[in-house]
């Protein structure tokens, strides 16, 4: 329980302005990027690792659950505090500490906005590739803690592939520094990777060192319209087999196309089953050759229309439809539940077929778009949460989508994480042995179960551990 003495003690640590207890302020930290909502008992916003340590020590002593939060753009409910919990907001820890050009690494505090880091390193000709669509409004710490991805991850890999070192505050307030600037490192267990995607349940990431790459000189973009989803899917495989590795390879299904067209009125073919948007990069000659190859493959694979952008402005126009998906969905219905199942590439057409069937069966509108190149799809269910019957059907549809993904050799989440939304399905996806190992790890690092309890794993760990 939070009492006045604890609040005063925390104010002494971070300053009076940075401990919030008023109901209006708690309501402002009750949500993330999902439709879920739960008010924390209090919010603490530290500015340094030392302050995080001191806050964690108080929480450990008082058995107060702590939920770390970045900018609250998560899509799994991971940063929504549990009943009676403390939200630890890390947005004030927003300093880029070093850009090491020689080793091509950057070190930053957890609250640095990913897009800010990208801009800072781009100024010296470097690139930090992970590009979640929230890159302007999510933090590096949050990206690492939730294992964020993005379109460019097909070619360049996910956040995990770029995190080289971490500073983590553990459940007892100890500070762990793991990893380093060495590209190769097998000295002991890989502790850095352990914290990636751990959603604040194993420790609180306060500082990260990430790998950078030279910024490619050029990008080229193409759009291909496919009357049949199967052909689009086959084209994806053929592009990759042709030796072209696009920097982005995005797909929108027919329902997505309809939604975007309803919103933009830009002449999208609403009778098409799929649109692929392809981007290649590298030096100008290479990027051009690759986009032409990819365009030819699309034509040969049944595309009814293929367009290669001649300049940056045209490229931007081709991306407009994909960029507008989110907005078009927000305007179509009040709520959306965005899932991010990941399936083997070959299973994409079958997965889309099953999602259509699930939508029909539950009388829901579900759009599918996502990263075709890596099989990470975003089925988004559109609904109105004020309608209890519709909400029930949404929940049933989610369960069916997860079951279908797992049946096709896929998994629940490619880049959003488990949070609370996918927690009930975790065991179905990973099996009982993996669950036991995960509980063991959780128990070893957080014996008091105060770090974001109820996320990834069920809140009550003890009975299962026995």
């Amino acid at each position, binding site marked *: 329980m939070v009492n006045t003495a604890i609040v005063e003690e925390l104010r002494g640590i971070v300053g009076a302005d*940075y401990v*919030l207890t*008023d*109901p*209006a*302020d708690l*309501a*402002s*930290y*009750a*949500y*993330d*990027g*999902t*439709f879920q909502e739960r008010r924390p008992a209090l919010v603490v*916003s530290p500015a340094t690792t030392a302050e995080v340590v001191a806050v964690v020590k108080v929480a450990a002593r008082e058995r107060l659950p702590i939920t770390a939060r970045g*900018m*609250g*753009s998560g899509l799994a409910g991971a940063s929504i505090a549990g009943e009676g919990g403390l939200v630890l*907001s890390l*947005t*004030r820890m*927003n300093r880029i500490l070093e850009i090491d050009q020689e080793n091509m690494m950057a070190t930053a505090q957890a*609250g640095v*906005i990913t*897009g800010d880091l990208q801009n800072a390193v781009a100024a010296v000709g470097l690139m930090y590739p992970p590009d979640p669509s*929230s890159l*302007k*409004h*999510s933090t590096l710490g949050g990206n690492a803690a939730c294992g964020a991805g993005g379109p460019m991850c097909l070619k360049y890999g996910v956040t995990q592939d770029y995190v080289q070192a971490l500073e983590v505050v553990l459940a007892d307030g100890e500070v762990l520094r793991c990893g380093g600037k060495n590209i190769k490192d097998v000295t002991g267990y890989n502790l850095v990777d352990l914290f990636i995607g751990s959603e604040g349940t194993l420790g609180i990431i306060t500082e990260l060192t990430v790998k950078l790459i030279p910024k490619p000189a050029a990008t080229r973009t193409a759009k291909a319209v496919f009357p049949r989803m199967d052909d689009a899917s086959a084209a994806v495989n053929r592009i990759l087999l042709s030796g072209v590795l696009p920097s982005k390879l995005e797909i929108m299904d027919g329902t997505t196309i309809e939604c975007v067209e309803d919103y933009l009125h830009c002449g999208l073919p609403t009778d098409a089953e799929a649109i692929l948007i392809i981007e290649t990069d590298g030096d100008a000659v290479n990027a051009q050759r690759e986009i032409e190859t990819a365009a030819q493959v699309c034509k040969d694979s049944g595309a009814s229309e293929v367009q290669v952008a001649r300049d940056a402005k045209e490229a931007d126009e081709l991306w407009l439809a994909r960029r*507008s998906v*989110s*907005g078009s*969905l*927000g*305007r179509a219905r*009040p*709520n*959306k539940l965005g899932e991010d199942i990941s399936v083997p590439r070959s299973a994409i057409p079958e997965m889309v077929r099953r999602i259509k069937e699930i939508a029909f069966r539950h009388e829901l509108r579900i759009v599918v778009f996502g990263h075709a190149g890596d099989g990470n799809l975003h089925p988004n269910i559109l609904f109105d949460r004020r309608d209890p019957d519709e909400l029930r059907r949404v929940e049933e549809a989610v369960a069916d989508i997860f079951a279908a993904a797992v049946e096709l050799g896929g998994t629940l989440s490619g880049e959003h994480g488990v949070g609370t939304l996918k927690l009930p399905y975790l065991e179905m996806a990973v099996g009982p042995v993996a669950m036991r190992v995960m509980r063991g790890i959780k128990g070893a690092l957080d014996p008091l179960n105060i770090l974001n309890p109820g996320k990834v794993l069920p809140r009550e760990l003890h009975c299962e551990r026995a």
Partner: protein
Amino acid sequence: MTETTRLADLTHDELYLHCIRCGLCLYTCPAYLETLLEPDSPRARIALVRAAAEGRLDYSERFADRIHRCTLCTACEKVCPSGVEVEKLLVEGRADLAEAGLLSPGVRRLTESLAANHNISGEDNSRRLIWTENLPQPPLGAGKAQAKMAYFVGCVSSFFPASYSIPQSMTRLLEAAGEDYALLGEQEQCCGFPLLVSGQEPRAEEMMRHNLERVRALGADTVVASCPSCYHMWKHVYPEVLGELGLRVLHATEWLADALEQGRLKLKPLPGRVTYHDPCDLGRKSGIYDAPRRVLRQVPELELVEMRDHHANALCCGGGGNLESHNPDLSGALAERRVQQAVDTGAQYLVSACQQCKRTMANGLRLLTKKGVKARLRVMDLMELVERQLE
């Protein structure tokens, strides 16, 4: 602000329902950038109004404080993928808070002055032409009964000494260009904007009606305003509330750009670099980005450079939405951030086209300088800069 007459008919639902909480607005919000606390974000303000409307949260002083810590700059609306009308929602929220007796104390003082004096200054409205008193001779438009053009000066420029030079410059420019114009003098009342943004529409409407009658009495076919908020009211809100005006409504920058391009005014060279700050009410809310830049390009030897955030992305100076009345410190901090962007361009002149932006940014410059930032920068209104260059 648009469609204010329908505010009462709009349900909260329509205004906030489509917020998908993506968080895209956070990074555009000057107040959030300052504190990095979620309650100072557009997303939180929407969530608060929604929670209150759904009966899940009571109005409180803190609630009211959070709703008033916003400049209504609408930078958030420009990026919102769902098209949530944040300004309209918050204005309605403020109206509800006012009814519940939770109007911000600073804003309450402001509105009390408006009721008593028909201006925001606390001075008697008969002093409207105080800004003309130190001129060698009164402006030609003072006391005129008939004219083609009415120059609507606005409260801040009329009563706050630091802004006197804006109408002084404007009247000299009007005269140099040979315009047949008139000032309303003590007949001018507040345009109604501060009342509207604090949710007090009926009282605003009385003043709007009064001003329109006075302009019609002059037989004018054009109203020109140097204040972007007055301009915005005349251009967009007056016709919605009062019906077709039958008047051409211009912002001073539009008039000036035309006058310069038609060769009606001749300017001396000004060697140097200038950067232009887009006032929210003129840029984002009225779509006037080019006119002031066209004016600056007419000044010989003056180089125009842009700040990091400009046009529709321009960062608010901190002076909007009654924030200065509600929380001067936060307003000042926002101004510092904006002025720093200007300092970063290496410009010698930071020019805006709004007396409130000028006031706020001049204060921001003072605060920055106090902190030891070396800024060789002069904050000016566009009218002042151009008037100084008249041949």
